[in-house]
Each structure stands twice: as C-alpha cells, then as structure tokens.
C-alpha cells in the first residue's frame, strides 16, 4: 500500500506526521526552556499532539477530553501556580546541573531504547474483538463493569479537592503567625 500525497490516506498521513511533530517539539520545549511559562506552553503543544493521536486511535471522545482536561484545566492550573509562586529562571550552569543533565540523558536514552526495542521485538498478537469503539459502549461499561472504579475515583477526586484546599489554607495561617 503506497498512497499518493493528495489522496485521503496520504493527507491523513500528513496530519499524523504533523501531530507527531507537535508532540516532539512540545516535549523538547517543555523540558529545555529556562522560563517555566514557556515550558507550560510546550506542554500544552505536546498535549495537543497527544489529543491528535487519540483521534487517530479511533477515540474522538478521549481527544476532546484530553483538550478539555489537560490543555484546558491542568495547564491553566499550573499557570496559576507559576503566577503565585513566581519561580526564578532556571540556572543551567553549575556542577549539580551538569551531573543531573548527564544522568537524565543517559537514563532517558536507555529507557527510550529499551522500550523501542521491546515494541519492535515483542510478538504483539491481535485478539478477536468482541466490543466496539463507540462512546455508548464506554458509558455502559463505565456504569456496569467498572462502576466500583468509577466510585473510587470520585472519592479520590473529592479527597484531593478537600486536601488541596486544606493544605493551601494551612500554609497561609502559619505564615501569618
């Protein structure tokens, strides 16, 4: 199969490569810029590309959720954190930073190489598909087979909200005293 550039498959392949480019450039920006506000912009770009991947993986619902939750909520939350904590621009010189950078490159490279080798070598076998990709199936199973997990994650989110409010309040009282 060898689609031409201007057929439907070729154009969707170009869009796929564009999303891959967004992920790569966004991840590089998120880990390499000195100012954190630029790093968070890189994270937003990268997550936009991940949402495109979900679209290619036959789940437009999760692509929209990715945009809504990650780009819309988590990134804005981190931007508020940057505004409130006013971090200094990161120092890239210094002995400790050199060591951390070298260790990071080695560990990240080894992990990436190992995972890519695993993806190539392992005999992934497709099994017989019994369900479908529809949002209806997701919703039905979320409230039948996985209802316990659904309730548990609701409790986790409730505890997280109460805990974060309590933590932020406690810090305020201590600094006043």
């Amino acid at each position, binding site marked *: 199969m060898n689609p031409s550039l201007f057929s439907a*498959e070729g154009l969707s392949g170009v869009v796929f490569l564009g999303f*891959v480019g967004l992920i790569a450039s966004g991840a590089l920006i998120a880990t390499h810029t000195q100012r954190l506000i630029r790093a968070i912009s890189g994270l937003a770009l990268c997550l936009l590309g991940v949402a495109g991947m979900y679209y290619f*993986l036959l789940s437009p619902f999760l692509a929209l959720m990715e945009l809504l939750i990650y780009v819309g909520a*988590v990134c804005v939350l981190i931007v508020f*954190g940057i505004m409130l904590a006013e971090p200094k621009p990161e120092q890239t010189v210094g002995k400790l930073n050199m060591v951390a950078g070298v260790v990071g490159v080695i560990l990240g490279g080894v992990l990436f190489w190992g*995972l890519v080798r695993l993806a190539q070598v392992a005999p992934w076998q497709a099994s017989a598909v019994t369900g479908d*990709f529809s949002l209806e199936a997701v919703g039905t199973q979320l409230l039948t087979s996985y209802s316990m*997990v659904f309730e548990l994650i609701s409790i986790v989110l409730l505890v997280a909200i109460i805990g974060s*409010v309590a933590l*932020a309040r406690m810090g305020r009282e201590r600094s006043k005293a």
Partner: protein
Amino acid sequence: MNILTLGNFLGSYLIIGAFLFSMGIYGLLRRRSLIGMLIAAELVLSGASVNFMAFNRFIAPNPAVGQIFTLFIMGIAAAEAAIALSIILAVYRNYRSIDTADIADLEG
C-alpha cells in the same frame, strides 16, 4: 511501509509513548524547580496514556477498556496536579522559593 501510513501501525504509537515517557524522566531529573518537575510528570502520564490507547486500538479484545482506563488516568492526573500545586504553594509560603536546592533542610 510508507511514511504516510505510519498511523496504521502499533509500533509508531508505542515509539511515541516511549518518547514521551523518556522525555518525562529526563525532565524530572533535569529540572531544578518543583513546577518544572510537575510538568515533566505530566509528560510521563501522557506517555502511559498513549500506550494504553494504542494497545486498545490494535490488540485489545474489548476496545472500551483502554478508553475507560485512559479516562481514569486523566482523573488521577488532575487530582495529582491539584495536590502538587497546593503543596508547592505551601512550600513557597514557608521558604519563599520553589527551587529544590533551597528547600533541602528538614524541620519538625
């Protein structure tokens, strides 16, 4: 295998997930401030999500399970970001800094 048909193979998504994961680990080690480490942790989580969705698309018997699991990962990531930011704000109030080199002392 043509470069324009890469989106039809499991391997390309697995490589993207591995890239996101290893960039996240690299950023966690390299960043010197707590918010930068939080950003890198989000990269690790999205790498895991991409892997789940790729296996869900290509080899899972029931294609709803991976989507449900990815939704749970999103919920956990939102809770993690909220908790981490409130901890970061509490640390900032006490130390006036979120640089990991400045907050290295323990105090009861």
